[in-house]
């Protein structure tokens, strides 16, 4: 079996076997206001992932070895293979990320310049067409780069797994015996105990989730006014308002009368001292 195929056959089920368990922890971290993709949350998730991955890798690799390669590996396959894969991936995956990012950025800029030159020299391209055209062009290059890198990575995983295949002992017996052998590996001896443990774990996890789950939204709308914050409704008392209005009108009337009196007084005075503007009162000045 080729290295790439072996790497894929072991990696694919391992990923999916560990994924639901990691998702449980990721969700609990989210409920506890921690992001599983950064800071402490990421470290905690990675810490939990190590034993999960070792277990999943051991189970899935042994199944593939027995079922597809007809060999039974030495004990400790999960841990030994995980150490090699983890060390290799720690180097390979950042390199793949950098390579694919560089290829993508280069492809984007080259495609943009090609499209610009087409627009300037040959024909005009509407916005929607331009977006899809550019996406297909740089997307194809980036996808090819990504697929090639992933094939290389899977080849590496398979290459690290091959020594374990060589050191494994052949499984003897009929096909039915072989199937029964690896099949039995996956079935726990005590079924009720397994079901009870699973149910118990489920209940505990649901309880923890319920305790951690915020009761109200962690992302409140800025303009939303909560019911308990709403101002009390002002009770309208028509008689009181009318009385107050009448009082205001009465006061205003008095002021008007006073102003009229002052105006008439000022008019008399001004006739006596006509031309002497400096003698005018401030109110009269304002009126003027």
């Amino acid at each position, binding site marked *: 079996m080729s290295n790439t195929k072996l790497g894929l056959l072991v990696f694919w089920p391992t990923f*999916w076997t560990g*994924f*639901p368990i990691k*998702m*449980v922890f*990721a*969700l609990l971290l*989210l*409920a506890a206001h921690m992001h599983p993709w950064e800071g402490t949350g990421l470290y905690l998730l990675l810490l939990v992932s190590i034993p999960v991955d070792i277990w999943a890798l051991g189970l899935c690799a042994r199944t593939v070895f027995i*079922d597809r390669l007809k060999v039974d590996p030495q004990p400790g396959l999960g841990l030994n293979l995980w150490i090699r894969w983890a060390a290799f991936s720690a180097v390979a995956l950042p390199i793949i990320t950098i390579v694919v990012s560089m290829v993508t950025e280069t492809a984007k800029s080259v495609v943009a310049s090609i499209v610009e030159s087409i627009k300037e020299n040959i024909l005009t391209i*509407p*916005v*929607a*067409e331009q*977006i*899809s055209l550019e*996406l*297909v062009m740089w*997307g194809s290059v980036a996808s090819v780069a990504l697929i090639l890198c992933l094939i290389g990575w899977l080849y590496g995983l398979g290459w690290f797994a091959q020594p374990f295949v060589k050191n494994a002992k052949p499984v003897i017996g009929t096909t*039915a015996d072989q*199937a*029964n052998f690896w*099949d*039995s590996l996956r*079935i726990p001896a005590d*079924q009720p105990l397994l079901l009870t443990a699973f149910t118990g774990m489920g209940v505990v996890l649901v309880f923890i989730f319920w305790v951690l*789950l*915020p*009761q*109200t*939204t*962690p*992302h*409140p*709308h800025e303009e*939303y006014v*909560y*019911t308990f914050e709403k101002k009390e409704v002002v009770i309208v008392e028509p008689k009181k308002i009318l009385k107050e209005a009448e009082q205001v009108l009465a006061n205003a009337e008095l002021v008007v009368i006073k102003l009229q009196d002052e105006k008439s007084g000022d008019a008399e005075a001004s006739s006596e001292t006509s031309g002497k503007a400096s003698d005018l009162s401030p109110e009269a000045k304002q009126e003027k």
Partner: protein
Amino acid sequence: MWSIKPGLINKFGFCKSLGWNGERRMKEDSQSVNQQNAFEKVVEFVDERVGLKTIQAKMLNEPIPGGSRWAYAFGSVLLFIFIVQVVTGILLMFYYVPSTDHAYASTQYIIHEVDYGWFLLSYHFWGSSAMVVMVFAHMSQVFLWGAYKKPRELVWLVGLALFGIVMGFGFTGYLLPWDQRAYWATVVGVEIMDKTPLIGDFLARFLKGGPTPGQMTLSRFFVIHVMVLPAALAGLAGLHIFLFRKAGPAGPFRGTPEEIKAKTDYFFPRQIWKDIVAMATVFLIICSLAFIEPVVLLEQATPDPGDYHPEPEWYFLFLFQLLRLKIFGGEFGQFLGAMAIPGAFMAFLAALPFLDTNSERNIFKRPLALIGWTVVMVFILVFTVSAIINREFLD
């Protein structure tokens, strides 16, 4: 890959419960009838009247040719998502008011003041997207496995109708929060529908209930979303499962009949276990999305879009972007892009089991089917991503 062994069956202890050894079991039952506890007596009472154990045997004791597989879990996951959508939908209805005056305020109330309301609403929102993704996955699996071929043509046709209902759920539910996003997505959707020949105008007027979306639109969308579509989906899903059980699972597309027979497994326990794990995983993903990207409303709906660029829900984005192409400009172009091409594609899918009568199911020996599926998937992906880039360009 999987093969069930007699010893294994006894380990799970379901031979007896399923009544496989009927006569011996009846004797054992008559001897132990006096030793039954209260629960067993209740089960016995119900079983005598409704045939509980026969139903249980029928449901669990279904042979799966070639053994259980993760690829067969999509249908069960869809049913699970639908049930949780019904539960969360009912809880949301306790607080939601389907009127233009209160829809927005009641949704804001659910988000801000109802205990865990924000989580319920966000779960319901992401659950609808998960349902669309699962429908695509389920249909792709059936297509690639060649499981639509004789004698499963009716299962495929009912499945297509269910696909339409799921899309209808997304379309009608999107309006209910009554914010700008909801309002304008509906305006765009109804405009697309309006382009259907003969019935388009009627459909658009029927859904809107007036010249512009308003109270009548909201009432109609609400009733369709919470009554018409759930009833239709429940009925058709039942029919889908009945037809599926009648025709039986198609099994893998590779392997000799002897190999497939040797590896044949039963629905219980292996496939049930895989289904449960798949359901739990999807549930965890939806919950995580509800945390990472909870529902946050825009401003209350108004007939003026303002700075907002109207666009439909993400699973209609590829169609929306297609209509932006110059080739689909003008009245005829819009009809072509919005109705004629998608309609022709759906008609082709409906006719597929009757057109493709070759009994070969191996996808690697059906190059046209494999290329066709890849082209459709790449097309949807490219135009969806293009729409997202276009949105950024407009912003």
